[in-house]
């Protein structure tokens, strides 16, 4: 009613006042007028008695919403309010009554305000915050980039979770402890990936200054050689091999005149270099010089060449420039023996594809090795400037004595600590105009797709398609989805997406009481989880309807797990498809993993199971429990679990939500806390019947599942779509994403809910392929 009136009003006002609708097609000014005049007074009269002030009922204060915009900003809160008002649960009987007309007006206005997104124009595709690789992604990417499975990655600090997933850019932080681990990991990984010859034999000769022979203006004393006037000191030594040596002179000087003391260094009479000694007399410094020596007896001469002396005259003291030599070291490492090619690790052969030689200077070899590597590490062609810098890093290390391979290691370390590797970088245009949202680059798209479906870097094929600029074509995407889903890397999607959607990661924390549930153990935990993953993977790879997840009449078992369930005829360790006909089980909801993860250590929890279904199957999380839940008057609850739950529900404050959750959970009561079938609990016969909020009555789990499946299949489809879109984008969904979800649902339904269609439609959506805005409401 209100809605039909509203549209012309909007048009008239927009035309008359020249008001522009915002990017979403919502005229906030108009909405605000309506809010102030019609809605706010209604809220004040009906709700504020309880829901305002410092200790509002249910922790929910409604007097914090001065404008329509503030309502829009807290959409989630208002969705729950609509839910409660709509089911007639609010306002409660003792409040100022709300007439049917006002109730409709309130709900209509709220609903249209918070969900009215103009999907006809170009809705905002949203903006993803820079995402760091989480630890799974890191491990997988290292494996695919360098061929090393770096297990300690699972030892990185846990990645924080947002919106139920651990790949959300906003919450993936980078604390210093993690950077420390990245650094250590990079060293460990590169040392595994690349064989660098062990440092060769060490040659080292250390002499005190007084041990050198000297001539002319030099004497010894005070534990040093004193160059009081021009003169030299020298020593001879057998250089054991030809190559790079380092000469270290520990020296100081007294300053006089304008110049510092200068020393000329020569080898076998040939001057190599001059150094200026600036260290003061009592604080000598080590001056280090690289030398190249031939093997055999070499004579190294250190000569003071700029003595300066002015005699004392009247009041001015003598000026005397001297130099002092405390000790001398000559060091070298023997160049490593050439390595036998066959013994090199595979990763080494793949990475070190060039060697320096007489015709190939090291810099060129580095460039050959690092160019493909840098591009794969950054998941896009590395720029020339980037490549120059990384080659320079390796070259410099090499010049300073690091081996060729060791220098490559170093360069790779830099590559995999670089933000271009650790983050899924997307270059956002400086300005984005509403309605004109640019596409992300082909390479960024490849990265998004590959981390979504594989939790790792794009493979060569995806990068090739990106280079050819074909990756965003719908037909290409469709065929790529089919290919990628069949690839074994898609197991990562199963573990990371399904594992988190179905909350199976929490299964590790579930410790049922071993006296009450002796058949459960760590092995069953693993097998049960594997059953669910295999089942999900089966539906995905056979491209079945996603509804099969709910009501599939098969599962995957091996002998041990089949015995656990009491299902006969399955032999061997391998998991295989097993029909469930004749069993009281179907789909995910009756699998032990999910039944266990929603239980308490000593008993089932119908409330948790019910909430789990609302959260993860129906996509309608119940309102939060109010803080400071009122204590039950009678104190202890008595009777069977069902009776206790019913007593709990007798409390009006609890009833409104529990009447949503409890019947769902109670229908699964025939499965105990570790998912085994039972007909009795503590001597009482199980009653799994109940009436669902929509009025349908169910007798047991099978009824429940069929009802969920047949009555409103779109609700499950929407729930799964929203979860998967959130995981795909790496951000929480916003209200404007409703358009994307709606479009996907239309296509999905038209294609019998086929799994690959869901994935494909996500990939071709604007939300996935375009840069949008981050809305500051």
């Amino acid at each position: 009613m209100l809605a039909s009136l509203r549209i012309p009003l909007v048009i008239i006002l927009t035309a008359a006042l020249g008001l522009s609708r915002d990017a979403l097609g919502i005229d906030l000014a108009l909405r605000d007028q309506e809010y102030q005049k019609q809605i706010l007074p209604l809220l004040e009269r009906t709700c504020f008695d309880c829901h305002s002030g410092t200790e509002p009922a249910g922790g929910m204060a409604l007097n914090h919403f001065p404008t329509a915009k503030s309502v829009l900003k807290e959409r989630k809160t208002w969705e729950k309010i609509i839910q409660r008002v709509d089911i007639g649960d609010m306002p409660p009987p003792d409040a100022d009554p709300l007439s049917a007309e006002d109730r409709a007006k309130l709900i209509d206005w709220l609903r249209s305000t918070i969900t009215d997104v103009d999907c006809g124009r170009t809705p905002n595709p949203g903006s993803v915050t820079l995402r760091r690789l989480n630890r799974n992604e890191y491990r997988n990417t290292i494996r695919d980039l360098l061929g090393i499975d770096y297990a300690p990655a699972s030892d990185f600090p846990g990645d924080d979770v947002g919106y139920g997933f651990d790949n959300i850019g906003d919450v993936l932080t980078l604390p210093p402890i993690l950077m420390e681990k990245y650094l250590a990991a990079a060293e460990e990984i590169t040392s595994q990936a690349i064989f660098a010859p062990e440092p060769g034999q060490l040659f080292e000769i250390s002499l005190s200054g007084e041990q050198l022979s000297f001539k002319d203006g030099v004497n010894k004393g005070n534990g040093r050689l004193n160059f009081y006037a021009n003169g030299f000191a020298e020593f001879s030594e057998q250089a054991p091999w030809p190559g790079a040596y380092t000469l270290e002179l520990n020296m100081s000087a007294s300053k006089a005149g304008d110049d510092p003391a200068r020393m000329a260094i020569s080898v076998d009479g040939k001057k190599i270099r001059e150094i200026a000694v600036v260290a003061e007399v009592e604080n000598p410094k080590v001056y280090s010089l690289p030398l190249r020596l031939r093997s055999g007896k070499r004579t190294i001469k250190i000569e003071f060449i700029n003595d300066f002396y002015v005699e004392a005259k009247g009041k001015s003291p003598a000026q005397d420039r001297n130099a002092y030599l405390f000790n001398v070291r000559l060091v070298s490492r023997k160049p490593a023996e050439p390595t036998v090619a066959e013994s090199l690790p595979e990763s080494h052969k793949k990475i070190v594809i060039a060697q320096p030689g007489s015709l190939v200077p090291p810099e060129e070899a580095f460039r050959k090795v690092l160019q493909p590597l840098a591009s794969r590490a950054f998941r896009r062609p590395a720029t020339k400037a980037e490549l120059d810098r990384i080659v320079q890093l390796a070259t410099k290390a090499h010049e300073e004595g690091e081996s060729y391979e060791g220098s490559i290691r170093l360069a790779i370390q830099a590559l995999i600590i670089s933000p271009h590797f650790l983050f899924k970088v997307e270059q956002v245009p400086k300005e984005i105009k509403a309605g004109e949202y640019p596409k992300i680059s082909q390479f960024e798209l490849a990265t998004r797709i590959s981390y979504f479906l594989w939790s790792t870097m794009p493979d060569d094929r995806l990068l090739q398609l990106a280079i050819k600029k074909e990756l965003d074509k719908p037909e290409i995407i469709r065929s790529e989805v089919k290919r990628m889903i069949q690839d074994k890397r898609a197991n990562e999607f199963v573990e990371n997406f399904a594992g988190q959607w179905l909350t199976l990661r929490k299964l590790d924390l579930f410790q049922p009481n071993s006296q009450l549930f002796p058949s459960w153990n760590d092995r069953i935990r693993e097998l049960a989880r594997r059953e669910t993953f295999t089942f999900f993977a089966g539906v995905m790879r056979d491209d079945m309807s996603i509804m099969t997840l709910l009501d599939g009449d098969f599962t995957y078992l091996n002998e041990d797990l089949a015995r656990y369930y009491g299902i006969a005829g399955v032999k061997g360790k391998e998991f295989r498809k097993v029909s469930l006909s004749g069993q009281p089980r179907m789909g995910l909801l009756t699998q032990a993993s999910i039944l266990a993860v929603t239980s308490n250590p000593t008993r089932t929890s119908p409330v948790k199971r019910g909430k789990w279904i609302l959260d993860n199957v129906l996509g309608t999380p119940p309102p939060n429990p109010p803080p400071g839940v009122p204590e039950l008057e009678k104190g202890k609850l008595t009777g069977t679990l069902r009776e206790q739950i019913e007593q709990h529900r007798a409390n009006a404050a609890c009833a409104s939500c529990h009447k949503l959750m409890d019947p769902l959970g109670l229908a699964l009561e025939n499965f105990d806390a570790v998912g085994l079938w039972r007909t009795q609990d503590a001597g009482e016969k199980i009653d799994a019947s109940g009436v669902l909020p929509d009025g349908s009555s169910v007798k047991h789990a099978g009824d429940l599942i069929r009802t969920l499946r047949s009555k409103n299949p779109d609700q499950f489809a929407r729930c799964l779509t929203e979860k998967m879109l959130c995981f795909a984008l790496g951000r929480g969904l916003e209200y404007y994403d409703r358009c994307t979800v709606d479009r996907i649902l239309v296509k999905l339904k038209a294609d019998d809910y086929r799994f690959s269609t869901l994935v494909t439609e996500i990939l071709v959506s604007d939300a996935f392929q375009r840069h949008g805005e981050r809305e500051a409401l």
Partner: protein
Amino acid sequence: MAPRLSRRTVLRGMGATIALPLMDIMTPFQSVRGSTAPEAPLRILFFNVPNGAHMPAWTPTKDGKGFELPETLKVLANHRKYLTVLTGLTLDGAHAHGDGGGDHARSGAAFLTGAHPRKTDGADIQNSVSVDQVTAAALGAKTRLPSLELGLEGSAQAGSCDSGYSCAYSSNLSWRNSTSPLAKEINPAAIFDRLFTGENVAGAAKNKSQKIEQRKSILDFVQEDARDLQRKLGAADQRKLDEYLYAIRDVENRIVKSDKLRVGEDGIPNYPRPAGVPREWDEHCKLMMDMTALAIQSDSTRVVTFMYANEGSNRGYPEIGAPEGHHDLSHHGKSEDKQAKVQKINAYHLSKFANFVDQVASIQENGASLLDNCLILYGSGISDGDRHNHNDLPIILLGRASGRLEANMHVRYPDNTPLCNLYLWMLHQVGIKADSFGDSNGVLKIS
């Protein structure tokens, strides 16, 4: 005077097999030369337990010096003269303030910040800097590690952590600023390596100073990458790169400061390197407490936070007859059985802490016990787990704060006295002249 060997030369001769002696060689420059013992530094530690406590067994009935030890606190009887029980403190930031449910996430996030965290599942995380980090910013330059963030449970969990709050809130106590929580380390082996071998050595034979130089060159390289990238990205992304750059600089500082590790006259105890995270909670907890003691004893850091579990944890403790989950039990609905089990868990947690205090008390430092030079807070941001109230919190202090705290008393404050008043007092003890912290409205008087 004969010139001293440079650090470079010393290291070169050492070879690969030596780990701990590195410290012995490097330290005498400071600690052997001076004959007068320097004043022992003050250590500040924060221990947090989830889900509140069974308060009737926690709060002493008598106030002042003559208080009797209530049931739960009895495990601390040996250290009574170091114990201060503070009753009546409130964490207002954890209250709903119109945000609805989520008390666990809020009290975890607010416990050391006193802020009211913004309700979000991810986007726009907003908390505030935590008291340990303010302390670390002031004291951190003096030690190798500005602070340590430890815990027994990692961050990752599936699902929303608490009623629309991101898990970042319920799993992190320490916040460097309003948007960057500091993840905790849960692996005792990793901490051991950070404390005593400095770095996780790959190819240990490599000349160490060269390795340090190479690490620096890598850090320089990636810093340039990040700065270059920062210029090209939007505001939210820049925040991420700011975190990156901070982490890089922090690691760089640690490398530079790696010769600052100070060892007491009696040296580091001969402690074996832990193998990893033990399966048993009990053993895990003990090892982490040992690492905490080693860290403060070696003066590797002066600020530690220790989180027993993520706030709202539902771990069961079958080993003490409480196999049901802690969180479920804490919603006891007045059930005596459940309340008794909650009390058991409280006492169990505290007994682990008491072992830690035993250990710290037994370490001698400048003629006193290390515990004399500690200021240790232990408590929860929730009082009764069933009501989720954030006033009347269970908070105790151990240690004498180098003589600044009298201890051995129970002090009762008017209800709604901000916990942050205590933090403000603590900041003053380490010489930070702050006027306020969080929602403080004065400096707590402990007498």
